[in-house]
């Protein structure tokens, strides 16, 4: 890992489109500003890990759906094939 020392208001440039700036340092908290193209996802790591874990747990097979649908009184799957759902 590259480790750099920066002062308040100093920045790091990553590639040609991402700039990370130290906005404020107070005790053990650092406020960081990030300029990046809007298509670059930015997450706090622990939140991203939580989302990822949730997604992995939400992958499902038909047996999961049947169990859940039954619990919700949603009934048996309609065969054949799906009904449309416009997002």
């Amino acid at each position, binding site marked *: 890992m590259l480790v750099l020392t920066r002062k308040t208001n100093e920045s790091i440039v990553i590639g040609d489109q991402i700039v990370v700036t130290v906005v404020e340092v107070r005790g053990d908290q650092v406020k960081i500003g990030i300029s990046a193209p809007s298509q670059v996802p930015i997450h706090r790591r622990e939140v991203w890990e939580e989302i990822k874990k949730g997604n992995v747990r939400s992958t*499902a097979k038909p047996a999961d759906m049947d*169990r859940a649908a039954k*619990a919700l009184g949603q009934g048996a799957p309609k065969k054949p094939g*799906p009904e449309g759902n416009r*997002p």
Partner: protein
Amino acid sequence: MLVRTVPYGTVDLPPEFFVDIPEGLPGFEQNKKFCLLEHSPAGPLKWLQSVEDPDLAFIVADPRDFFPGYRLDLARADLEILALDSPRQASVLVMVHIPKDPAEMTCNLLAPLVVNPRTRRGAQVEVRTAGYSSDQSLLQGVIPAAVKREAAPARCRTA
């Protein structure tokens, strides 16, 4: 378009079933195209099926079917990514986890999949509403009143 699906085998779907998720979903970034399939016409649970991976499907639901007060408060950058003027224009789905005992099923209210119905593009984003859990019990429908918390990571455009 023919799609191989987890619940229904190969099905032929018209374009309005598809959702593009250009950033992918955390943990599944290589999957960018999905389709939404009903399980049963009247029910709240749906399938979010990867088009690229026939073995990958998620169970999702509209959170408002379970939590009528669910508030979608999005960072401006996320609205821009989705080309939305307001969260009210969006369709919203949350990931549902079904454990062995379905009475304990949970959903992720913290990071919903937000879709612009006009472009059919979506992204899984972190809402800015305080107190929403990534592990919310689905059948005990009490969620904190919507209070704005400190913003999700802010971002400004470089271009």
